[in-house]
C-alpha cells in the first residue's frame, strides 16, 4: 500500500479536463440525434403505421436487447467489413452512431408512454377543427409529451455521458481513453481512475442540478 500521490492527481486534472469537451460533444451529438430518432419511432409506434411499426418494434427490441459495447464493436469493427464504403468510419462517428441507436430505442418508449398519456380529447379537438394527424402531433401532442418525458430523457442523457467512456475501446482518446494512457505511463492506476471518476461525478451532479431546475420549471408550465 502506498499513500495517494496528491500532486500527481492535481497535475492530472487539467490534462484530463482538456478531453472533457470531446466527451461532452459526443454525448450532445448522440442526444440530439437520438431525440429526433426517438420521436420518429414513438410516432410510428403510436400511429401504428403498418410495416413501419413492425420495423420500429424490431429496432427497439434489438437495441434494448443487446449491450451497447457489442453494438459499438458491431458498427466500428464489423460493419466496414460488410459495407465496404464504411471503411473510413472513425471511432467518434461510430460512438455517436451507437449512442444514437442504443438510446433512441429506450427514449422512444418513454416518449411513446408520454404521448399515450396525453388526454385523448385534445386529439379529437384538434381533428375536429380540421388538423391533419401530422399537425396534431407537431403542434399539440409532441410539445406536451416532450415536457412529460423530459425528466426521464435527462436521465438517459446522464447515462449517455457516462456511456461515452466506451469510446476508448474504439481507440478514441476521450476522457476515459486519456486516463487510460496517463495511467499506463505512470502506473498510478488508482490515482488516475479516481481523478476521472470524480470528473464524471461532478459533471453528472451538475446535470442533476439542471435537471431539478428544469423539472421545477416544467411543473409550473401551463399554469398561468
Amino acid at each position, binding site marked *: 500500500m502506498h499513500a495517494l500521490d496528491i500532486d500527481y492527481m492535481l497535475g492530472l486534472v487539467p490534462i484530463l479536463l482538456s478531453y472533457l469537451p470531446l466527451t461532452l460533444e459526443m454525448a450532445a451529438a448522440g442526444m440530439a440525434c437520438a431525440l429526433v430518432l426517438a420521436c420518429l419511432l414513438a410516432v410510428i409506434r403510436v400511429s401504428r403505421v403498418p410495416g413501419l411499426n413492425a420495423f420500429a418494434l424490431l429496432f427497439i427490441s434489438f437495441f434494448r436487447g443487446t449491450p451497447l459495447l457489442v453494438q459499438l464493436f458491431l458498427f466500428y469493427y464489423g460493419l466496414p467489413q460488410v459495407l465496404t464504403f464504411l471503411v473510413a468510419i472513425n471511432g467518434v462517428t461510430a460512438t455517436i452512431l451507437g449512442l444514437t441507436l442504443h438510446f433512441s430505442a429506450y427514449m422512444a418508449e418513454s416518449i411513446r408512454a408520454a404521448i399515450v398519456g396525453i388526454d385523448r380529447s385534445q386529439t379529437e379537438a384538434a381533428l375536429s377543427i380540421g388538423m391533419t394527424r401530422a399537425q396534431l402531433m407537431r403542434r399539440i401532442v409532441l410539445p*406536451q409529451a416532450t415536457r412529460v418525458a423530459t425528466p426521464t430523457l435527462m436521465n438517459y442523457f446522464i447515462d449517455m455521458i457516462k456511456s461515452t467512456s466506451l469510446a476508448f475501446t474504439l481507440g478514441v482518446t476521450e476522457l476515459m481513453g486519456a486516463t487510460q494512457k496517463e495511467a499506463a505511463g505512470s502506473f498510478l492506476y488508482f490515482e488516475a481512475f479516481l481523478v476521472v471518476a470524480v470528473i464524471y461525478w461532478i459533471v453528472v451532479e451538475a446535470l442533476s442540478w439542471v435537471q431539478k431546475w428544469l423539472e421545477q420549471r416544467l411543473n409550473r408550465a401551463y399554469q398561468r
Partner: protein
Amino acid sequence: MIELKGIRKQFGNHVVFNDIDLQLERGEIIVIVGPSGTGKSTLLRCINFLETPDAGQLTVGDLNLDATTATRDQILALRRRTAFVFQNYALFANKTALQNIAEGMIVVDGIAKREAYARAREILGRIGLADKADAYPAALSGGQQQRVGIGRAMAANADVILFDEPTSSLDPQWVEEVLGLMKQLAAEHQTMIVVTHEMQFAREVADRVVFMDQGSIIEQAPPSELFSRPKDGRTQQFLRKILAANKS
C-alpha cells in the same frame, strides 16, 4: 343546407343507429334529447367524422360526401365546415386561451399569425374573456374553459357548430354563463346542433327539438309543440322523467 341521409354506425356487433335522416336550414338551431346510450353523441361525432359512419350521405354547405367512399381530403373539408364543442372542453393544455382560439385559423386555414391573433382577441371579447388571453386552460374555471371551447369553435367559421352536452361537466355555478353564450350565438343565427339535458334552454332557444331513442329519431317538432303535446309514448315517458328530475 345540412343533410344527413341513411347514416349508419355500429361498434362491433352493436348497431347504434341504422338509418338516421336529419335536415337543418342555415341558421336553424336544433336540440337533440333522449335517454343515455341512445346514440346522440355518436350521431354528432359522425357528422364531423370523429366516428366514421358505416353508411350514409352527408351534406354540409356545398360539400357532399358518402360515408363509404369519403376520402381524406373530403373528411378534412368536412371538418373545416363543422366545429365541435366537447363536454369536457378538450382545450389544448399547452396553449393559452388566445392560442387555443387562434390555433385552427393559423394551422388549418393558413391565416397569418397577426391576423389570426387579432381575430382571436375579438372572439375573446365576445365570449367575455378579453382579460384571460394569456391564461392557460389549467388556470381557468370550468365555465371559462368551456367558453374558450366555444370560442375555438366560433373561430372555425363553420357552417354548423355541434355541441355535445356542453354544460354537463360544469359545476352548477358556471352553467348559466355557458348557456348565456350559446344563446348569444343563437341570437346571431349561428347554425347549431346541441345535445343537452337543459330543457329550459331547449324551450327558449331551439327551433326544433329532436327526440332520439335507441338509435332512432322518434319525433321532432318545435319545442312548444314537443314539450306540451308529445305524440309518441316514449317521448312522453322521457319528458315526464326528465322534467321531474329537473324540478328536484
